[in-house]
């Protein structure tokens, strides 16, 4: 009875790839001997396989490879990863704080001006933040996603992955998803200037 039914195309594929258990392979071979439709499908798939397997890898031209290596931009850090705990940046921040504290001390001692403390204190915080990169980090953490475009490509990429994404005024608007889901779906895109806005109903 089974031999009279057409096998599923996945089994026909596995037959071509010789991935079936021996008993099932024999059954399918028996079916193919009597079924012209399946035998033709298998014949075509095998011919397509041979055509593709005869191809070689194509080589990237040397000048293109050199251009890639030449044009690599400075590496970026992920928000919250590496940067916040980088020993070099922490050291730079501490150094900036110490230097500023020393300057404030000198100013207070030489002028006796209590008014300078508050103003200098604000600058110290800014300097420490700038040295550690924390200011940039915190402002980015609150913003929308900014990824490499074009916007239409990002939107189509999202739609292919099942999201409701549209392009509105050069921005990609995603509805009915969380920012985390969108972020994960676009994890393989690098940062850029296309804004992706996630709107939940």
């Amino acid at each position: 009875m089974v031999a009279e039914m057409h096998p599923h195309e996945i089994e026909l594929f596995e037959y071509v790839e010789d991935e079936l258990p021996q008993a099932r392979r024999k059954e399918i071979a028996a079916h193919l001997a009597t079924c012209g439709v399946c035998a033709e499908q298998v014949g075509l798939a095998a011919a397509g396989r041979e055509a593709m397997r005869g191809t070689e890898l194509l080589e990237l031209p040397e000048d293109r490879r050199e251009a890639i290596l030449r044009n690599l931009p400075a590496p970026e850090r992920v928000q919250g990863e590496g940067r916040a705990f980088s020993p070099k940046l922490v050291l730079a921040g501490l150094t900036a704080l110490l230097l500023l504290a020393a300057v404030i001390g000198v100013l207070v001692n030489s002028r006796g001006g209590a008014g300078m403390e508050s103003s200098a204190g604000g600058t110290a915080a800014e300097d420490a933040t700038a040295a550690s990169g924390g200011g940039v980090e915190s402002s980015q953490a609150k913003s929308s996603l900014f990824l490499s475009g074009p916007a239409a490509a990002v939107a189509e990429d999202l739609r292919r992955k099942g999201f409701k994404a549209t392009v509105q005024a050069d921005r990609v608007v995603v509805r009915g998803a969380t920012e985390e889901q969108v972020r994960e779906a676009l994890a393989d895109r690098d940062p850029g200037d296309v804004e992706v806005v996630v709107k939940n109903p």
Partner: protein
Amino acid sequence: MEDPDAPLVERARRGDRRAFEQLVERHQHRLLTLAARTLGSADEAADAVQEAFIRAWLGLPRFRGGSLFSTWLYRIGLNAAHDQRLKRRTEPLDEVREPADPQDSFLMSELSSALQAALNQLEDDYRVAVVLYDVLGCSYTEIAELTDVAEGTVKSRIFRGRSRLAELLGTRTAEE
């Protein structure tokens, strides 16, 4: 599955350009083959590869190692190729690309072959599955992960893609 690229990836994640250069060396031809066979254009494929490696370099700090590096890289490559295709559609008609370097004659002849002409006519999903499996030798699991479908769907796509390809090649041969 242990990733053979893991040690280099770890170094590259920390900004080691030499390590990334070695990753480029390892994957450049496979990535070009994927882009060229799916786009059918040498220039656009080389642009996509260049873009993909730059995106990978910038995105490495976000790569968590949840998949093989090669799978992640191919996905970036497919996205870059897709962007190239969109760009092609939106480019003004009178904008002419510079011709490819004549030294890439093998690349050019491959992309003007009957096989490539047939590949160009396949549905995108079939073409990508066939190239990943038959040319690059990716596993079903890798292709499923790369294309967001089940392994059974991957097998169906390869089967149908190969069959259609053979039909197209047969038709073409008969016409010539």
